[in-house]
């Protein structure tokens, strides 16, 4: 439902008068149904740098070029080898051998979508890090695949925090990636939880309408078409008034609490039926839990109020998000749904689900909700105007519509060996041994790569059975991996034996293999997360909620394609 509604807003603006969408809209139809015109516009204005032109790197780019990324630069100073021509679909096979890897790959990638700008950069990234720092910072996202630790250190330090860095590592059937950002705000989270209908705190017009219906005397057909929110509001109000007479006045805002009270309440709804099979009352009975599910402000949203009121340390950003949150906090503090209720609520949104009802009654209810939400939106806008930011109506509407599902994620800065996360890794080693061992093995391999150790363990091709020398090499490589892995952990840590034997064995088997299927799998996963970052829709991987003080996530996604699983650390 959410998807089709956002599409609706997305497509009305670009529709030709006849209704038939233009060719571009038709081309992107299947993705516009997910991220709408706003997401598409964000994607089309994004600039991405990818280093270097490996099979994995071009697979990631493929999934960004197809949906219509704005610009990409592919940086690689190397020439195509026979091995590259064999595992990279975007090279021209045998005929690319010897030519620039970046140029050949860009050619292959651009063929797929002429709406995308793509540039091959044949410079060495180490040179660029010295000579063209400013240029590197013009990108929104930089993606690095199997880039060694030294280069990553420099790159990470330069880009943090304005440009997001995506670090991708893979060897054979194993892979991992992480996205490095300070904070990521999501308005359109596409949450599956819907906003409250406020049955327990009905706004005055709804309450008045519910109480005005002559339930016993109205037309029997009309009676069978009263929408269930109206029935629930009526039943709850009557229940409250009865309780008020026998108990304390405070019960005027109470709801059935005990199992017995809830059961009796449902029977009350049943007793309101005038015929045995009125489906709207059956629906009301089934939805009765809405009477005792209090309309509250989700804890995550509450935490955001605190986060943005206290965080004067945040750099001033072009984003209107903090202002919107501040206005929302003001709204919540100062606007109870009606004088009867003590606490404030999030602004009402117009998201009425379908229900058993006549068209007239449904549209009437929809109008009541709309009028109230318009009213509350005006109040919100008054608060927002004090924040002295310019936010257009589209943004405000999207913000209010999603105010119950706002998300602010935190990330971390990339560090090769992070002393601060040693204890956390130790912890993860006991709670997630497979995932953590995989991460450690890949990180260790990356460090060996930086030390130029890995390249001496080239896998030879040919003989049926591995030679003695090869076996020795493999065992030596496993030992080196173990030694490197220990540098990520507190001294004296023991690696989980079985898991470590498996992951180090996997790396030793294929230390420099960029397998086409692993590349394609990663290509999909990484592109998907990058699209979420760029569009600021849906929820990318993270190290947790920004407002939460817990630091129990590394924000790394790990992949094992032997047993075929993914995991998050």
């Amino acid at each position, binding site marked *: 439902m959410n998807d089709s509604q956002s599409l609706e807003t997305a497509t009305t603006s670009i529709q030709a008068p006849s209704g038939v969408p233009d060719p571009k809209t038709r081309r992107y139809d*299947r993705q516009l149904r997910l991220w709408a015109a706003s997401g598409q516009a964000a994607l089309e204005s994004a600039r991405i740098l990818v280093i270097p032109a490996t099979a994995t790197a071009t697979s990631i780019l493929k999934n960004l070029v197809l949906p219509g990324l704005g610009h990409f630069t592919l940086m690689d100073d190397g020439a195509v080898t026979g091995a590259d021509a064999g595992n990279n679909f975007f090279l021209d*096979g045998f005929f690319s051998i010897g030519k620039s890897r970046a140029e050949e790959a860009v050619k292959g990638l651009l063929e797929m979508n002429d709406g995308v700008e793509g540039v091959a950069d044949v410079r060495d990234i180490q040179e660029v890090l010295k000579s063209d720092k400013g240029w590197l910072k013009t990108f929104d996202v930089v993606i690095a695949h199997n880039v060694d630790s030294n280069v990553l250190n420099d790159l990470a330090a330069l880009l943090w925090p304005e440009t997001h860095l995506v670090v991708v590592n893979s060897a054979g059937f194993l892979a991992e990636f992480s996205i490095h950002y300070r904070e990521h705000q999501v308005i359109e989270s596409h949450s599956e939880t819907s906003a409250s209908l406020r049955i327990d705190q009905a706004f005055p017009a709804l309450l008045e309408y519910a109480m005005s219906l002559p339930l016993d005397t109205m037309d029997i057909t009309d009676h069978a078409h009263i929408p269930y929110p109206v029935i629930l509001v009526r039943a709850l109000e009557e229940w409250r008034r009865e309780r008020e007479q026998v108990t304390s006045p405070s019960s005027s805002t109470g709801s059935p609490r005990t199992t017995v009270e809830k059961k009796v309440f449902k029977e009350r709804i049943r007793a309101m039926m005038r015929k045995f099979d009125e489906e709207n009352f059956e629906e009301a009975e089934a939805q009765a839990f809405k009477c005792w599910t209090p309309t509250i402000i989700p804890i995550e949203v509450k935490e955001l109020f605190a986060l943005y009121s206290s965080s004067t340390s945040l750099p001033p950003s072009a984003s209107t998000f903090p202002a919107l949150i501040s206005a929302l906090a003001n709204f919540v503090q100062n606007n109870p749904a009606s004088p009867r209720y003590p606490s404030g609520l999030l602004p009402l949104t117009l998201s009425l689900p379908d229900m058993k009802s006549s068209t007239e009654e449904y549209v009437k209810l929809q109008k009541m909700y709309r009028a109230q939400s318009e009213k509350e939106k005006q109040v919100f806008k008054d608060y927002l105007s004090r924040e002295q930011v310019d936010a257009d109506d589209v943004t405000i509407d999207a913000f209010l519509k999603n105010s119950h599902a706002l998300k602010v994620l935190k990330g971390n800065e990339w560090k090769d060996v992070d002393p601060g996360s040693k204890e956390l890794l130790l912890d993860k080693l006991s709670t997630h041994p497979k995932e953590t061992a995989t991460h450690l093995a890949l990180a260790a391999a990356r460090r060996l790569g930086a030390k130029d150790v890995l390249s001496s363990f080239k*896998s030879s091709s040919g003989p049926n059975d591995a030679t003695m020398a090869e076996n020795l090499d493999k065992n030596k490589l496993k030992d080196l991996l173990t030694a490197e892995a220990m540098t990520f952990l507190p001294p004296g840590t023991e690696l989980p034996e079985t898991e470590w034997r498996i992951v180090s064995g996997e790396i030793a088997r*294929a230390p420099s293999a960029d397998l086409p299927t692993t590349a394609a799998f990663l290509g999909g996963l990484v*592109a998907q997360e990058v699209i979420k970052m760029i569009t600021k829709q849906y929820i990318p991987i993270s190290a947790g909620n920004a407002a939460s003080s817990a630091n129990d996530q590394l924000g790394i996604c790990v992949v094992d394609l032997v047993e075929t699983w*993914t995991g998050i650390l």
Partner: protein
Amino acid sequence: MVNVQGNQDWEGRYYHIDQILDAPGPRTDEGFMAGDDVKDFLRNQAKILVIGAGGLGCEILANLALTGFKDIHVIDMDTIDISNLNRQFLFRQKDVGKSKAIVAAEFIMKTRARSQGDAVSIGLAFLLQIISSGEFLRYFGKIQDKDDDYYLQFNLVICGLDSVEARRWINATLVNLVDSENPESLKPLIDGGTEGFKGQARVILPTITSCYECSLDMLNKPTAFPICTIANTPRLPEHCIEWASVLEWPRVHGDKKMDTDNPDDISWLYAVAASRANEFNIEGVTWSLTQGVVKNIIPAIASTNAIIAASCCNEAFKIATSSAAYLNNYFMLIGVEGVYSYTFEHEKKGNCPVCGGESVSLSISREMVLEELIELLTERQDIQIKNPSLSTPTKQLYLRAPLQLEEATRPNLLKKMSELIPDGGEVTVTAGTLPFSLSLDISFT
């Protein structure tokens, strides 16, 4: 039909893949033949069938080609639409309207030799056969009399389909293909599917693991609205659109079939739906929503397809080479919130209509009449059926009820079994006492 042979393996071509094929890893089966044997099987012998050349199919074909499979067959009955271009990366604007199978296969073959101009004459890396739309349709239409030999020639089948019906069909076909006398008859089926940010990949070993039919109840049903709501109490824009397509179209156009691929038909529905929405004060009917509802459009993006197709091909590679353990047996991905996935063993369903029923071999006299066979079934201790109904794949033998069908099949009771079925023929038995059905494998003495 395009049929190109050739082989052109340049030096270092399989540098990456060979790291896996030259030596076993920690999770490799003992039967793995590292080195030349496995490479020879993968590159010169393995024959793989890809069903579907759409969102998943394009990715599958590219991955298989890079992995080293050289005998790849592809079936697809569809033609290319502009809305495919956001993810089906073997197709270009100029290909709109052409056969997906043909364009995809040609692309895969030529991509390895683009700069030579004449792809065929230089000899290609891949042998591909293309079965174009008509043929698939023919196979598809007549399930009962299709030829098993076609499927027997493959080692593996990968499915990237969006249709439940086609999947049920290929699944049943491969389960039925399994012949206890012939080990080669067991064809692993790898099935992938995506929807927006979600997807799944699974490995089906027919008759050994759970099959597609076993998990049919896991499927999400497409939204359907009560017809009375559509007719009289529309509340959502979708209700107005269904009114136009379900009720108004047949009323106005009679037997003329709606073509949801024809923009004119969508425009007609949109206009009708919009005016109804206007009449009922309902907002939100758009051309795109109209198209989405009547075509039951499922959002589809390149990235999800890439993940699922990669997983399918990775399993195909591991199964074909025994180079590493493979998925057992279901991988589910949900990418809406972070990267969430779940790998589990989907269990075989005992009463699955395709792979769950019992099968019994019976050797009977040619002279035995159907009535006697039924008696035999009810009396046999190991079967113990009450009131069975029997049929063959092509006709009913004896149906217990309703009366009209009983009367129509009653004359068969006195016929000799050899008149009713061929030697080695199959009889399907249903009865209230059976969980689903029993299959009889009948031979004559």
